[in-house]
């Protein structure tokens, strides 16, 4: 599944992840090839247990493959040392999770600035950046709130702001709308749409068709294998009326 001219920003070849031993061995990710171009939004869809979260972890260096290669910006990340990998996760990759993973005892702005502080920015620069990001996600007025005082959609927007804090090359999101209702989902979709327009590279694994439909490409995954790819750009605008009973 390769689709980009020149060197892709994110590239996987022959990626495999196995769990267990002998008879009980399971191949969660099986010989996956994937190219994601700079500025592209790619959604990977599939049923629970198809291996999509495992794939995302391999792409972001949260887990190491059993076999195969992952390169980010032309540089191999599957075989680098623990320290280099940890640095990469802090600076080059932004993660967004279904259950937000915010620190409950820190305010919104403290959650966002934490990753910049860990990456070695000065407290002042980190705070300034965090405030900018919260404004960007529409939460400037909630900067001093604890996560428990925020709605699900607001928490996820804080998590997205945090993922952006070190200007990552790529944002990897795992079911970002999985815990959200319809209106909050629309907020997150708007946010991702804005990131996309700003040129941010995004890889989203999800079984929410609404978020998959915002991608440039949708890839289906079944039993650890990428099986189908759909390019979603170039739509049917103007024909929506037929879906509402207004004729075609």
């Amino acid at each position, binding site marked *: 599944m390769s689709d980009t001219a020149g060197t892709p920003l994110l590239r996987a070849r022959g990626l495999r992840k196995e769990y267990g031993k002998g008879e009980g061995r399971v191949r969660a990710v099986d010989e996956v090839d994937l190219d994601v171009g700079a500025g592209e939004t790619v959604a990977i869809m599939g049923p629970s247990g198809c291996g999509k979260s495992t794939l995302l972890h391999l792409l972001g260096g949260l887990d190491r493959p059993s076999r195969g290669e992952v390169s980010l910006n032309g540089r191999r990340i599957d075989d680098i040392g623990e320290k280099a990998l940890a640095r990469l996760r802090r600076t080059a990759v932004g993660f967004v999770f279904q259950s937000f993973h915010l620190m409950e005892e820190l305010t919104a702005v403290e959650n966002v600035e934490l990753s910049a502080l860990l990456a070695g920015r000065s407290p002042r620069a980190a705070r300034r950046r965090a405030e900018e990001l919260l404004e960007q996600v529409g939460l400037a007025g909630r900067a001093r709130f604890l996560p428990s005082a925020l709605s699900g959609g607001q928490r996820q927007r804080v998590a997205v702001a945090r993922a952006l804090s070190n200007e990552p090359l790529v944002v990897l999101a795992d079911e970002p709308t999985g815990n959200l209702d319809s209106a909050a989902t629309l907020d997150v979709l708007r946010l991702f749409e804005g990131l996309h327009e700003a040129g941010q590279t995004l890889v989203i694994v999800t079984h929410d068709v609404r978020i998959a*439909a915002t991608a440039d490409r949708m890839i289906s995954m079944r039993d650890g294998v990428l099986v*189908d790819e759909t390019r979603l750009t170039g739509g049917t605008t103007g024909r929506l009326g*037929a879906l509402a009973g207004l004729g075609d």
Partner: protein
Amino acid sequence: MRQEVVLAMLAKEPSHGYQLRARLRDALGPLGEAMNAGQIYVTLTRLEKAGLLAADRPADGADRSDRKVYALTPEGQRRVAEWIAEVSWPRPDLAEFHLKLIAAASAGLADPITIVDTQRRELLRRLRDAQRAAMAEPDRSDAALLLEGIVLRLQADLRWLEACEQNWTHPRSGS
């Protein structure tokens, strides 16, 4: 029911009308019980006249439609292939799409998963458009509410396609 459905259900092998009815009853379950036998024979006769079906007369020469064995003509086969490849618009007619998957699989005309993927691609494009339109609307606009209805319907159709995909990836016994 569209004539193409009847044609496609004959693609597996030449059949008597009653065999065709049994196949439809199996595929549709309780929904098939309301089907009128007379209607099916009328459709078969029409398809025969249109040159899409050929009927073998029984040895005793009787011209009763319930005794004939129907088979697709080359023209009928072409029509079925077109129908299989066609994407339903604006939304899949559930029974028609369901029978399309069954006919395609049983006659080996196409991989049902490919049909599901093609349909999903179209629905995702429409969902993308509907969502973009919804996102462009100010909060609480009347139009946004209508667009949400479209989004929810498309989601329902896409969920059903997911169920179809699972069924045809790991077919249930008997199907």
